[in-house]
C-alpha cells in the first residue's frame, strides 16, 4: 500500500479574531521588532498515511479535517499530500 506524507495547514477563517496573532503583534514592537502587521497564528498537523491511492488518501484526510482536525465554525484547512518514496 502506498504511503503519503500529509501536511494539514489549519488557519482561522477570515473575520474570526485571532487572540494569539493579536498578542504577538502587540508584543513585537515592544521587543524591538518593527514593521510587522496582520499576524495570524495557525496550526500544522503532519503525519504519514497509508492509503490505497492518492485520491482515497486525500478523501480520508479531508474527512478527517471536516469532522475532527478543524472546527469549521472558526477554522479552515489546506491539505498537502506527497507520495513517499518506497
Amino acid at each position, binding site marked *: 500500500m502506498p504511503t503519503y506524507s500529509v501536511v494539514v495547514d489549519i488557519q482561522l477563517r477570515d473575520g474570526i479574531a485571532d487572540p494569539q496573532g493579536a*498578542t*504577538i503583534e*502587540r*508584543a*513585537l514592537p*515592544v*521587543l*524591538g521588532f518593527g514593521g510587522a502587521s496582520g499576524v495570524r497564528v495557525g496550526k500544522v498537523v503532519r503525519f504519514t498515511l497509508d492509503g490505497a491511492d492518492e485520491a482515497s488518501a486525500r478523501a480520508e484526510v479531508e474527512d478527517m479535517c471536516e469532522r475532527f482536525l478543524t472546527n469549521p465554525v472558526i477554522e479552515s484547512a489546506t491539505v498537502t499530500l506527497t507520495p513517499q518514496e518506497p
Partner: protein
Amino acid sequence: MSAPVPLHRSLGLTDDELERIVEILGREPNGLELAMYAVMWSEHCSYKSSRIHLGRLPTEAPWVLVGPGENAGVVDVGDGIAAALRIESHNHPSFIEPYQGAATGVGGIIRDIFTMGARPIALMDPLRFGDLSKPRSRWIAEGVVSGISGYGNAVGVPTVGGEVVFDATYDGNPLVNVLCLGVLPTERLVLGQASGVGNLAVLLGSATGRDGIGGVSVLASAGFEETEDSAKRPSVQVGDPYEEKRLIEACLALLDAGLVVGIQDLGGAGLTCATSETASRGGVGMDVDVSAVPRREAGMEPFEVMTSESQERMLAIVEPEGLAAVQAICERWEVRATVVGRVTEGGALRILDGFDGPVLAEVPAASLHDDAPKYDRPRRRPAPPSPSADELAAPADPAADVQALVADTSWIWRQYDHMLFLNTVIGPGHDATLLRLRHPVTGADTGRGMALTTDGNHAWCAVDPRRGTALVVAEAVLNLACVGARPLAVVNCLNFGNPEHPEVMWQLSEAVDGLAEACRGLGLPVIGGNVSLYNETAGVDIDPTPVVGLLGLTGPIAHRPPGAVLAAGAVVLVVGPEPEPVLGGSAWGRLRGAPGGALPTLDLELHGRVAGLVAGLVADGALLGVHDVASGGLAATVAEMVAASATGLVADGPDDAPWWFSESPSRVVCVVGAAVVAGVEAAAAEVGVPVLRLGTAGGDVLRLGGFATLDVAALRGAWQDRLPSVLGSGTVSG
C-alpha cells in the same frame, strides 16, 4: 594531540569512584554498568556532598509516619487521614527551557506524592528569578509561570500558593522549587519497595524516549555556561499533564484495589533508579528486560533506555496473579502497562536483553545507593556581604522606598487554578494558604483545616546562613499562625552554589544547623527535602537559598481568617516585641545597595508564644486583618495591607528608618475592632507578649508617624502594576 578522556570521566565519575566500582563488582564495569553508576552516583541522585550534613536534622515526632528517605514525608493529621508532603527543585532545566523545565518539575513532584498512595491536592511554587530589568529574566519568569500554569492546571492539582523573589543573584540561575501536598487514608500508605520473589515489575505510562539522557549529570550537576549551550544542547524533556492525570487515577485505583505491593515513580536516573531503589529497599534483586520497555524512538541503546528521564512513568510491583486486573484498570485509564522486570532472590540488579536473553549488566542493586560516595568537602567562611545597611544614612524619600518594597503577586497566581477540589478557604495572596481537610476517599469534611506556606530569604542567609535559615523557619511559623494554624512538619529545599567551593559548603553546613536549631526549638520534625547544588553561572554562586515548606493544622474552622487587610475604623496593633534596630540582610538595605550588616536575634521560646497567641486569635474570629512582619519590615507589612484593601492607616512611630524597616522577627500586625482591643491585650499579657497600639485604619493616606506619608491610591496602583508592567506582554530569550 591530548589523550582521549576515559569513559568514566566523561560520564562524570572520578578516578576514585571508578576504583570503588571495580571493588564492588570485583571486575571492570562495562559501559552500561558505568552509565548506571554514573547517573546514580551523580550529585543529584546521591547527595554525595550534602548527606553527611543532612543527618543533623531532627526528623522524629509521634505524628510522623514516614520521614526523609522515601518519596515523600507522611504525617498523621487525624480522623484516619495522613498527609504526604515533598518539595523539589527544577532549577537547571528551567533555565534552558523555562516552560518545560517548570512543567516537568510539577509533574515530578506530583508523582512523588501519589507514589505514597496519596491523592495530590495542592501545589506551591517558591520561585526565584533574576532582576526584571533584564530581558532574559523576564523570559524565564514568563516561561516558568506559564509552565506551572499549563501543567498544574491541566493535571488537575491546584497551585494554592508559593513565593516569588526577583534579585540579581538569580540572573544566570533561576530557582524553580515545587512543593506538593497529598492526602491518603492512613491505611493506604505504600512504600517504594519490591518484595516477594517472582513478583512482576510493571512499567506504567509514557513510552521511553531519549529525554534527558545524561540529563541527570549534565543538566542537574553542571553549571550553566551560556556560551556553550548550543554545543551540549541537552535533550529537553517535555511534560504531558494529560498522561500524568491518567497515571494518577490509574495508580490510585490500583492501590484502592490492593493490587500493588510497591510502587515507585521514575524521576532522575529513570529506570536505573526505580528498579534498583525498589529492589534494595525490599532487600531483593531484580531482573529487568530492557527489550520489553516501550520506546518512542527507534534504535535506542540499552544504556539510553536505562537512564532516560522520559516523564510520566511509574514502576509498580505486582503479584503475577494480579497482573490481569492491573492491566484492566490501566486499560480503562488508557495507561500503557508493560511487564519489564521480575523480583529475584539475592540482591542483584540484572539488565537482560529478553528475560532469557544475554545479561547486559549485573550489579548489586544496593550498591547504586548505599555505596555512593559521601564527601566531607572542605568548608570556609566567606567574607560577609558589604556594605552594611546599619550604616546607611536616613532615606531621602522614605515614602518612595516603602512603595518600592511592595508588589502584588496576583499576576502569577491568577494563572494558576487555585480553587479546584473546593478546599481553598484562604488561597494565594495572604501569609499562608488554608485548605479544608477532607477525607480523600469519602470526601467527608473534618471541619478542620490544613495550612501551608513556603518561605525563603536569600538576603538573610547571605549575611548569616545559620541564623538566616532559623529566621526563615520562624517566619513560616508566623505565616501559618496568620491563618489560625499550628505547625506540624517541615520540608526543605536547599538551593546552593557549587559544593566544590568551600564557601558554599560552609553555607550549606551552617544552613542545615540553623534549620535543625529552629526545628528543634519549635518542636518540628523535618520529614523530607531536596538539595540542589551547582546553582552558579560562570563560577559565581547564587546566594544561599534554603526554602522551607511548612504544613500546619487548625481546629474546626469556625471563622474564615481575615487575611492581610485593613478595615476602616479598626485599631491596628503590633503583637510582639519592639524591633531590634538592625538592618543586615533587610529588603530596604538591599534596595539601597547595602546587603550587609547584622541580623536580628531570634528568641524561639518567645516566638512560639507569639505564634500560639495569634493562631488562637484568628481561630476565635477576633481579628479583622492580620499579617506578620517580614521582608521590608513593619513599613512594608502595613503598606501591603493598605494596598490590598485600599484602606488607609494613620500609624504612630519614630522618624527612624531602622524602626520601620527592621525585619526583626516575632511580630504580627493585628487589626481589631475597638471593642476587642482590651481583650487582645489581656490575652497577650497572659502569655507575656507585648502589644503596641500602632494606629487606626481608614482614610486615603498611609501615614507612618513623621517618617513617611503615602497616598493610598498611588500606593495601590504601584503595588498592582509592579509585575504586569514588565511581564505578560511578550519576552525575548536574550
